[in-house]
């Protein structure tokens, strides 16, 4: 078991430009079912992917692959033709929110938005559009979602992952890789790793992911990686205290970040004294979460939490 994606997930890619092509190739090499693409100006074409299989991915496949991905002019047509259940958005920032809304309208279950730099106002509208629809948005500005050896949607390196029992949820890409790597080395492995992204408006938050992991019988514990800005970590702490039945470890980045400065991510900013790392660490610790003092200690914090 896992959350969000598994070997049955059928994935579309929106935006078959340079980035979309590069990561579609990596996803296919990993064994993900990439069933189609949406790129209006290239509709009707077929993009062929060939190469050496990434054997750290879905097991039991030949050493090479040769996959045709048909390109459609709309998500609706692509879904009808391919029965896609998920989509990954690499569309450039000015058009990405529209791509998200188009996907929601077409009836996919999961939208993973990798695009960084979408205007906040566009995401406010997109999120409003998604209200009441039976679809989950992960991101934007995120590495994506991976269930090791089943399905990789996004830009994370597949080979650092290994199937196991820890759910990973994070606002940061490279810190997710750090956590995943440590969980692979210490033998705990991952059920699913979810990057929720570094933007102030995102589709899926910590509480959503904690709830999914709490309900997943194969997930035995969760690592939650937060950072300065907003109150999503404090909200998560409250939820954990009231609902979480599994151990949680955490790391919060930005203890030394100066106030009023955006630390790379659009959402990583301490403003008006709100969103400090100290407040988040305190809230999580009070909820019984083991908070790692440094990112190097995330794996051992998870072991400690599970003891």
């Amino acid at each position: 078991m896992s959350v969000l994606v598994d070997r049955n997930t059928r994935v579309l890619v929106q935006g078959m430009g340079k980035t979309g092509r590069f990561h579609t190739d990596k996803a296919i090499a990993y064994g993900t079912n990439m069933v189609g693409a949406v790129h209006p100006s290239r509709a009707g074409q077929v993009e062929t992917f060939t190469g050496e299989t990434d054997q750290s991915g879905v097991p039991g496949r030949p050493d090479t692959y040769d996959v045709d991905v048909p390109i459609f002019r709309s998500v609706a047509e692509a879904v009808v033709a391919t029965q896609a259940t998920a989509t990954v958005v690499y569309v450039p920032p000015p058009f990405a929110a529209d791509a998200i809304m188009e996907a929601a309208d077409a009836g996919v279950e999961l939208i993973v938005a990798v695009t960084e730099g979408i205007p906040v106002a566009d995401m406010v509208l997109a999120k409003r559009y998604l209200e009441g629809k039976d679809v989950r948005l992960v991101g934007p500005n995120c590495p994506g979602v991976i269930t090791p050896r089943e399905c990789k949607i996004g830009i994370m390196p597949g080979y650092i992952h290994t199937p196991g029992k820890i759910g990973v949820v994070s606002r940061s890409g490279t810190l997710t890789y750090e956590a995943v790597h440590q969980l692979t080395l210490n033998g705990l492995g991952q059920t699913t790793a979810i990057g929720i992204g570094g933007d102030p408006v995102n589709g899926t938050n910590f509480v959503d992911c904690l709830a999914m992991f709490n309900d997943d019988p194969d997930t035995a514990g969760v690592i939650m990686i937060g950072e300065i800005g907003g109150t999503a970590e404090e909200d998560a702490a409250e939820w954990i205290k009231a609902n979480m039945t599994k151990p949680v470890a955490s790391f919060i980045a930005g203890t030394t970040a100066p106030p009023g400065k955006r630390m790379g991510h659009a959402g990583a900013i301490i403003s008006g004294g709100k969103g400090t790392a100290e407040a988040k660490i305190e809230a999580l610790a009070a909820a019984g979460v083991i908070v790692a003092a440094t990112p190097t200690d995330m794996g051992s914090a998870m072991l400690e939490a599970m003891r």
Partner: protein
Amino acid sequence: MKIHEYQAKALMGERGIPVPAGVVATTVDEAVAAVRPLIESSGNPVVVVKSQIHAGGRGKGRFIEHPDLGGVNVVLDGIDGGIPAAEAKVREYASEMLGSTLVTIQTGAEGKVVNRLYIEQGIDIATELYLSVLLDRSTSRNIIMASTEGGTEIEVVAAETPEKILKTEIDPAFGLLDFQARNIAYGLGLEGEAFRNGVKFMKTIAGVAVDLDTDLLEINPLVVASDGQVMALDGKMSFEANALYRHPEVEVLRDETEEDAAEAEAKEYGLSFISLDGSIGCMVNGAGLAMATMDIINYVGGEPANFLDVGGGAEKDQIVEAFKLITADENVKGIFVNIFGGIMRCDIIAEGVVAAVKEVGLEVPLVVRLEGTNVELGKQIIDESDLNVVSADDMKDGATKIVELAR
């Protein structure tokens, strides 16, 4: 991106928000020349001389060169002495303010040099209120925050008398609705002419925030004049960086003298860079990891000199540029390169680091921690270079080593 008060008022004025008349001045003579037309057209003998810097708290701020002088000065001399007296006083203030360094609670101790003044007509104020439009991250919607406690810092109001802050959520599909605007005006205690003007003000300001993609639009104080006009007496606007591409009219308002030169240069190379006060330079891929690298340097007893995220696809010339930025800071006593290669391969990074060190030169210790794709190859490249580079096994090991070497 931040802009000056006079620019914010111009943007608001163009969009139907009442603002006092004013003139921007960069010289003493320009400041003096502004006085007569302002007084003659408004009929009010009072003018205000306001420092234009990208920081709040100007009124309570003081100049380093003139410790008794505030950043905002009301000139009353015109009441008895007429326009010549007002001009003389403005000349005196402008001479002292222009080119001097203003320190406010938001500038830090080093302060900011005042290069521009805004000379504004006086307003006969009946009431001072507070208003802002900003994103509520917990609901992913804009809210209007309003308060009767104008002129005070809103953080102080929020901490001490939170019941005096009215929050109104704006549904992005509908915008601020009429009844919501009325409720805000009721909440602010507006009546009669002021009520009608206030409702119109709320509706307009909510639209301005959306039209211009502001990430903060703050009016403190929002004033009710004695004639019932509702006006923005101050205006603070900052713009959401991701949306600037569609606002060329805002982009031209950028004041480069207010921005950190190194940060602006970094941006041109696709690097995210922020200068700090410490002595350990950092080069990292990924924003979260870059922040965590600063934290871990602090954890092992050092102080980071910067935040630097080279991004997910950095190439050699970006790494060279990153090294130049780090080594240009004379406080830097050691450099820590911390990379978790995903899509980015460690061997490419290692080659970039070796090339950068050869090109830029290296006078301080360098610790490199590589993990991820092609890590062995990357370490080999570092080890086989004849550079004085120390390899680290993990982040904590690397941070510990660089802090020791930099002592």
